[in-house]
């Protein structure tokens, strides 16, 4: 996909730019960087630790984000699946089955998914609708913590921890209220792919 490749290239260029001279790396700047770099494809690896299972389950695949609101997650392992979040509509396809959900009807799932989309989009408003943000680290290596501010979200999420460098997100780590945990790691996709 050519435009996507272009955006990726742009992302990589942006990521290697020297950090700005000033030392104060603010949420606003982070969001601007994220928004500027938004779009394109990344590979992901997700490790889910679930209480009922003795070991973590791992899935791999690719995520595509098309600003402002379309997030696609194509899982290759352990089984093929496509999840598309477009605006308020979430549709999941697997095994020839098709589920359609509306995020409004599932506010808790919505908060989780929106935290990923909001981060990738650099959408501070969307993030702050459900979370309190705190930023640490430098432009080159920042850490963003999302603490639920909406009590309904707090029912299922303890905290979300995001790490990255400039406009690139490297890790989203979601700790759920029931102790289950999901760690999503992103790596840029080689341009030749």
């Amino acid at each position: 996909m050519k435009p996507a490749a272009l955006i990726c290239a742009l992302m990589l260029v942006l990521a290697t730019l020297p950090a700005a001279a000033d030392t104060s790396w603010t949420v606003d700047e982070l969001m601007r960087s994220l928004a500027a770099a938004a779009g394109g494809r990344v590979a992901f690896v997700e490790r889910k630790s679930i209480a009922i299972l003795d070991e973590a389950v791992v899935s791999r695949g690719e995520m595509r984000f098309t600003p402002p609101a379309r997030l696609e997650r194509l899982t290759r392992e352990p089984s093929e699946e496509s999840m598309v979040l477009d605006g308020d509509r979430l549709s999941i396809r697997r095994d020839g089955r098709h589920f359609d959900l509306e995020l409004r009807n599932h506010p808790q799932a919505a908060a989780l998914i929106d935290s990923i989309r909001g981060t990738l989009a650099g959408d501070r408003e969307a993030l702050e609708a459900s979370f309190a943000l705190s930023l640490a680290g430098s432009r080159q290596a920042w850490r963003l913590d999302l603490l639920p501010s909406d009590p309904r979200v707090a029912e299922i999420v303890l905290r979300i921890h995001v790490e990255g460098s400039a406009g690139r997100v490297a890790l989203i780590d979601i700790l759920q209220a029931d102790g289950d945990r999901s760690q999503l790691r992103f790596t840029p996709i080689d341009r030749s792919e």
Partner: protein
Amino acid sequence: MKRRPVIVVLWLLVLAACIAGTVRTRFTADLSAFLPRTPTEQQALLVDLLRDGLVSRLLMVGIEGADGDTRAALSRRMAETMRGDAHFASVNNGDGSHADAERRWLFDHRYLLSPAVDAQRFSAAGLGDAIGHTIDLLASSAGMLVKPLIARDPTLETLNVLETFDAGSGPGSLAGVWASADGRRALLLATTRATGADTDGQQAAIAALQADFDAARRQLGAEGVALLVSGPGVFAVDARDTIRNEVKRLSLIGATLIASLLLLIYRSATALLLGLAPVVSGALLGIIAVGLVFGEVHGITLGFGITLIGEAIDYAIYFFIQGTTRNRDEFWRTIRLGVITSLCGFGALLVSGFPGLAQLGLYSMAGLTGAMLTTRYVLPSLVPAGFQVHDVAPLGRRLVRPVLAAARLRLPAALLAVAAVLFLWQQRDRLWHHELSALSPVPVAAQRLDAMLRADLGAPDNRYLVVATADSAELALRRAETLAPALDRLRGQGLIAAYDSPARLLPSRHSQGLRQAALPDAETLRDRLQQATAGRPLRPSRLEGFVADVAAARAAPLLGPSSVDGSVIGLALEALLIPQQGRWRALLPLSAPRHDDGDHDLDAAAIATAIADAGVPETVFIDLAEESRQMYAGYLREAWSAALGGVTAILLVLLVALRSPQRVLALVLPLAAAVALITALVVLAGERLTLLHLVGMLLVGAVGSNYALFFVTADPADGLPRPETLASLLIANLTTLCGFGVLALSSVPVMHAIGVIVGPGAIFALCFSAMFAARPRDDPGAA
């Protein structure tokens, strides 16, 4: 004039009895009377099903205007109010509010309901596959949704059950509630408690719906929003209102016109009142006769009462104007013959397959007979001494000249009639409407709104149905289950897009029993789980909830229709599994594949063959649109035979009475010309003929023969009746025009069709009769 008080007293007694009877008569205005009685038992049952079944209780609701959030808020507020309203059995707007209870029920009964449950699935290998699959799903984006299920449902039967239930694709959502695909309307689907046949109940429900919408709109301060409602109930209520209003309005117009006309002619209020005596007697007798025979009187029948006024008042007119001056015996003979020919015409309606038309026939026959008897025997005793209506002989004399002049136009008139016949012959393939909908008083705009909301909601149009009938609910469900493989094949071949089945909502006890038998006991299950989870990150000890649930399902009582009573599932089941006269019908609606060209037709023959090949007893495939087309065609044929029968009867009566084929021909030909001309004009105006136009043509003959009789029995000198008779014929003709003509203004097709033919047709009948009877002195050769 000889007075006979006994007769007057007797008449008053009969009238009083009629009034008492009328008070007790039930009046209806629902449409079914003007839909044909169905010819086959199969179709009759089906129509009942659709009329009284759940389908008839659906109200489709749309909210338009403002923005999506406002519409969604209105939808939520309305749904909330309506759910507490006794008018509605169920309300769904897609907000998922009642879904919790439904999901709970499905979860609780998943091992009886899931089509995936069999011995293989509960073997060690089957369980292993299912659990492996579940773990994969946990890793996926949908993991969150299934995580709460795993401990009790590691094979995820809940999802299988939900999928089976969601097979019918509901509408999409916007802002959390159902919305049309283009996002411009919020949608709700309500089911009324009242049946479709209960028009009052439907009306109350629709009014409540409107009130709920208004209240919600006020509370939310929403501006510029509109409520759209459609459904069988809306059609029924609107049709009834239309019929009621039009019957009232047109009766008033017709009666006013006739009364004004008569006042103008008689110049005597007494004469007008006396003239009404036969009309009122006839109308009351008609109502009583219809009430006694049919059990109820339809609003439209009353609407035709106007036409009876137009006919019955003629007798009084003849009586006032001619009865005193002319040879009385001859006068009454002519009148009697006229009544008999009219009775022959209306009598043809009696055998009609439309209960409404049969009512009309009986009403007119009883009414005319009553009016005629009143005129003959009562009116002479009621007339005050020295009573005299305004002399109309001068009017009649003034008429003679134009009539004689018009007679010279005989040849052009004959040519016109021939041209009309040729035109009709040339148009013969396009003359007739072939759809039952031609008789529907539902305006096209309302039909369009209905189609739009139906498409929005993805509501089945129930055009294509497979119906399996059996002696018990269980057997009907089993037959529905047996049909599934054949239907799945049809879906695979793309011949149908989808189908629904009551067995999806409630499997037969037989199937439930097989599933129950496939469930292992607790010890066996634990052993198998041990093997199934080997090498997987899920320890069997975590699945004790599952073991307990399976053990409970093994001992659970099987589900029957009563298990889902009152629930959303029960409501859905009620639409598809219907008890009827001690038998049970399983309805499996098919939806046609959507083609790009918008064509929604199914290959009915291929499907009928596939269903027949499935070999399920007492199972048929029905295309309702085709059935109704055939029903209509049948009724048109029947109307033709009735009309021909009526014409034959009239001819026979005339032949016996006049004893001369020539005179009968002289009488009948002008009438035939009149019928041809008015029919051609109606067709030229762009109307397609329905069987009610045909009935109208018959009535032109029946009514017109009354006028024609006075001509063929007339003074041979100039071929015209006496001047006062001529005048009375003109007046009677004008009242007929008023009575029938106003019906042509009606938007109810049944009334319009008859009015538009009979009103002008009667005028033509008189004109042609006069033209061909008159013998201008310079034209002695005319026969």
